[in-house]
C-alpha cells in the first residue's frame, strides 16, 4: 500500500488469553500520511494501537518502525524516541495546570519555551488557560491539551485513539483540522475512530477492521458506503 512506511504492522495476530482478536493484519503508515483505522466496537482497533505503540506483543507477525523491527520493544522506549500515543480518555493529568501538563511531556533537552510556543500557536485557547487546572477544561480543550502534550514529545509517529469521544461535531472538526496540519508537517498519523465519516474527510488512507480481520485497505476516498456498512452491520 505504501512505499517506505514509517510504521508497519506485518501479518500481526494478537490475542487476549485464549481468544484471538486480530488475525493476520497488515497496516502501513507513510511519512506525513493520515491513516484512519475504522470499525465497529470490538473490531480490534484499540488492540491494534496497543500493538503499534508497544503496549502489547503480537502472537505472530512483527512491528516495524522506520524500517527497523521493533517487535517487543517496550512502549516507554518507543515513546521516548518519538512514537506518541494519545489514548482514549485523553490521559491528561487533571490536577496539574495546562502548562505543567505540556512541560512534563517534553522530550529530554527540549527548550520549554519552544515547546510552549509550538503548543500555543496550534491551540491559542490553551495559552489563555495555561495556569488553569487541566481537569477544569472543557472536553474539547482537554483533547486539545492531549494533542499539545503529544506534540511536546516532538513525535514522528502519532496515534490517536477515539478522539471524538464525548465531543461536539464542531469541536471535533477543529481538532481534525489540527491533525491535518500536524500530518502536513511530516508526522505520520494513525487515527482510530468509530465514527467513520468524521475522520474520512481528513484521512489519506483507510483500514477497515471487523472481527479482527482487515476488510478494506486503500485510499480513503475509495472507501464506499457498502464496504463500511458491511463492516459495521455485517453482510
Amino acid at each position, binding site marked *: 500500500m505504501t512505499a517506505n512506511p514509517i510504521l508497519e504492522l506485518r501479518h500481526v495476530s494478537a490475542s487476549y488469553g485464549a481468544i484471538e482478536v486480530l488475525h493476520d493484519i497488515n497496516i502501513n503508515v507513510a511519512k506525513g500520511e493520515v491513516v484512519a483505522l475504522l470499525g465497529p466496537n470490538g473490531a480490534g482497533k484499540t488492540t491494534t494501537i496497543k500493538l503499534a505503540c508497544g503496549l502489547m506483543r503480537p502472537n505472530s507477525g512483527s512491528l516495524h518502525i522506520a524500517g527497523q523491527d521493533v517487535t*517487543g520493544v517496550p512502549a516507554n522506549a518507543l515513546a521516548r*524516541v518519538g512514537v506518541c500515543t494519545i489514548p482514549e480518555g485523553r490521559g491528561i*493529568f487533571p490536577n496539574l495546570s495546562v502548562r505543567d501538563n505540556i512541560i512534563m511531556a517534553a522530550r529530554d533537552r527540549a527548550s520549554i519555551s519552544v515547546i510552549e510556543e509550538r503548543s500555543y500557536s496550534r491551540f491559542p485557547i490553551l495559552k489563555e488557560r495555561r495556569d488553569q487546572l487541566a481537569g477544569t477544561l472543557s472536553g474539547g480543550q482537554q483533547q486539545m491539551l492531549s494533542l499539545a502534550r503529544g506534540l511536546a514529545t516532538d513525535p514522528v509517529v502519532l496515534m490517536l485513539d477515539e478522539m471524538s469521544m464525548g465531543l461536539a461535531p464542531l469541536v471535533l472538526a477543529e481538532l481534525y483540522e489540527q491533525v491535518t496540519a500536524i500530518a502536513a508537517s511530516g508526522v505520520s498519523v494513525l487515527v482510530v475512530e468509530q465514527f467513520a465519516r468524521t475522520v474520512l474527510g481528513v484521512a489519506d488512507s483507510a483500514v477497515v477492521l471487523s472481527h479482527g480481520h482487515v476488510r478494506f485497505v486503500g485510499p480513503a476516498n475509495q472507501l464506499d458506503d457498502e464496504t463500511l456498512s458491511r463492516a459495521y452491520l455485517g453482510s
Partner: protein
Amino acid sequence: MNEGRVEEFTREIAALKTSGAKGDTEKRLLALGSLLMIVGVVLAVIGGVQVAGTTNAADQMAAIATGGLLGLVLAVVGAALFLRYSIGRFMRFWAIRLIHEHRSETDRVISRQ
C-alpha cells in the same frame, strides 16, 4: 518536522534494544533474589551446624568460609535484588494508583460545581 528530526528518529529506533523482555527479566531477577536469600540462609545454617559438629579448627574454618561468608554474601545479594525489583514494581503500582485517585478527585470536584 524537519529531515534532521526524521534522521534522529531513525537513528534512535535503530539503537533500541529489541529484546523486549524487560518484564520477564524483572520477574526472573525477583525470583533469583528470593532463591539467593534462601540458599544463603540455608548455607549459613549448614555452616553453623558443621562448625558446631567438629572440634577441628581447619574444618571449622572451611565451614565458616562456605556457610558463613558465602551464605552471607548470597543472602545479601539476594536481598538487594529482591528489594530492588519488588520496590520497583510497588512504586509503579503506587504511581498508577495516585494518578487514578487524582483523576477521580478532580472528577468529583468538577461534578459538584
